[in-house]
């Protein structure tokens, strides 16, 4: 039986990483994610793992990619400005198909912004920040316990799909303290392994049946070549249009083909709803409270919480739009998530924004006021 502990979201992230087998962490201090690095600095040496504070944000993610290629399960954590700096190497990780997890505990931007204040303004930079075409998996927890669970899931997805996975946290959840009970053990997706020898014609980037390559780790005798140049199954750069198209398409298809299996959402009070709130992360907690209050007033409103932010829950949103008249998107930004929701509903429901970008989180009363407006219950 696991003991209950009072724990911060950022600490739970570190605990989840360790539970999932992360044995390498490289980072650079940045508010409000620093406690993740500090926790890893404490935990990893006790677990035969390596903690490394690097000279900058780019170096820390570079070290993570290198460590992963050498067989480690590797993680890095940062906030918006650091994430911006890592963008080139995130694309490298996607192109060279290197499993790893990058945590972004969001803060107010642009630029240095408001370092300790909550925001959800990185939704688009985690999806579209690096240059070129590539898919992204991003998960967003709303509680301390879920931070633990989604960190585990992020590590497992990164290994399964061989791609960097983003844990998209926000300052509210990162600095939130809750009583949690953590499981004794979790299911861990093992590192993929080659099933052929070099003599049998092994190619490190030839996809297995699930579209993901069984790339060898360095030091296993396969003499693989890894590059950020577009490459074929051998891993070597190739300048042909066919190889380029096939490589880019495969990067997308390996994730698209699993469809909704990795797109997690949570529905609350939606059975008979005519109105819905869509939210993620810490804001979903506020939205949940607001929806409960609205229900007390007799407003038929529910909540759709996005757990997987990317790939976007297009199908779930479309189903929602077919059931409700209008959707309120509650988010801590000038309006990012709302655009994606608007795109996904294909005009089948009215979409309104309840956004905030003033250093403070939304309050239940603010969301409630917007729900009332949505339902035509204006005072």
């Amino acid at each position, binding site marked *: 039986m696991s003991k209950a502990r009072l724990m911060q979201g950022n600490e739970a992230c570190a605990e989840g990483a360790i539970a999932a087998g992360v044995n390498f962490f490289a980072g650079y201090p940045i508010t409000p994610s620093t406690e993740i690095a500090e926790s890893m600095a404490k935990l990893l040496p006790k677990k035969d793992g*390596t903690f490394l504070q690097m000279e900058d944000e780019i170096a820390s993610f*570079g*070290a993570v*990619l290198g460590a992963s290629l050498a067989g480690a399960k590797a993680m890095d954590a940062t906030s918006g400005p650091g994430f911006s700096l890592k963008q080139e190497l995130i694309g490298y990780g996607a192109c060279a198909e290197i499993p790893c997890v990058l945590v972004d505990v969001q803060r107010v931007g642009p630029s240095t912004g408001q370092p300790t204040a909550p925001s959800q303004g990185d939704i688009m930079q985690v999806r579209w920040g690096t240059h070129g075409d590539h898919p992204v998996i991003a998960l967003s927890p709303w509680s301390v316990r879920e931070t633990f669970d989604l960190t585990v899931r992020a590590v497992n997805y990164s290994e399964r799909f061989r791609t960097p996975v983003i844990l998209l946290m926000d300052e509210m959840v990162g600095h939130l303290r809750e009583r949690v009970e953590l499981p004794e053990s979790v299911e861990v997706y093992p590192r993929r392994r080659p099933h052929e020898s070099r003599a049998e014609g092994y190619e490190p980037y030839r996809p297995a049946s699930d579209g993901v390559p069984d790339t060898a780790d360095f*030091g296993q005798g396969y003499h693989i070549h890894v590059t950020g140049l577009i490459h074929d199954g051998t891993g*070597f750069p190739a300048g042909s249009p066919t190889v380029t198209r096939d490589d880019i398409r495969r990067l997308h298809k390996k994730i698209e083909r699993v469809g909704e299996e990795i797109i997690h959402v949570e529905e609350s009070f939606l059975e008979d709803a005519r109105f819905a709130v869509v939210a993620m992360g810490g804001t979903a907690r506020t939205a949940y409270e607001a929806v409960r209050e609205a229900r007390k007033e007799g407003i038929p409103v529910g909540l759709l919480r996005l757990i997987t932010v990317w790939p976007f829950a297009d199908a779930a949103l479309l189903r929602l739009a077919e059931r409700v008249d209008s959707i309120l998107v509650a988010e801590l930004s000038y309006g990012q998530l709302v655009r994606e929701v608007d795109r996904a509903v294909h005009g089948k429901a009215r979409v309104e924004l309840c956004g905030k970008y003033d250093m403070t989180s939304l309050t239940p009363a603010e969301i409630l006021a917007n729900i009332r407006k949505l339902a035509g219950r204006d005072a």
Partner: protein
Amino acid sequence: MMERSYEKYFREGRLPHIWCPGCGNGLAMKAIVMAIEEKGLPQDETVIVSGIGCSSRASGYMDFDTLHTAHGRAIPFATGIKLANPRLHVIVITGDGDCTAIGGNHFIHGCRRNVDLTVIMFNNEIYGMTGGQGSPTTPLDRLTTTAPYGTSVRPFDACHIAMAAGATYVGRSTAYHVRHLAKLIGEGIDNKGFSFIEAYVQCPTAYGRKNRLGSGADMMKHMRDSAVMLSAWEKLPADKRQGKFPIGCFLKREVEDFNTSYEELVDRAGGVR
């Protein structure tokens, strides 16, 4: 003919390399495989990590686990590899732009951190891959495509930087002095810590042509005539040093490498290995 023993370190069917006729990068690559052979590094446990640029294409030709990283980032990637699997011998190939411009911060911190890496910087004094723009090691008053009226910023001496930043082995040689270069790289491999070896290489195409330095062979003759072994250099009066530069091992110092220090840290933390 007996095939040369270093041929086993090249990937079958990958040569000829992409470097221009007369380029010195092939010679620096030759010195690396000569050193690897001399030191008997196991091919399955040696990793070659490179950045971006002409020099960094070397990794693709070499029959080891090889990693062609992003521009300037070879040292951080190599650091991750060495710490994740200390059994691996990690050799970094970088260029003057890659190492001292975009990767400058990683370079100095690599020296300071003293992870057991052997870094070989191919210094052709120019950005070759992009067609001849000035780099931090382009000498003063040279012509480049981005300095059409001559360079006006003083160049870096990468060996001085490495020494000041804490590297535990620092040396320099040239493409002309292949065997000497291989010897220094071998000493770098022997050093358990961050070793930095600067390999002067000629770029007749982008740098030599613009500055009327002649063919690759002419540029190598210049290396032969202007490089002075350190012991002789130290005896050379200042006026005789004009137009010449020292080669050799500039520094060797005993400092515990990162992995060893980290093992001690693990013990202090009460960790299990």
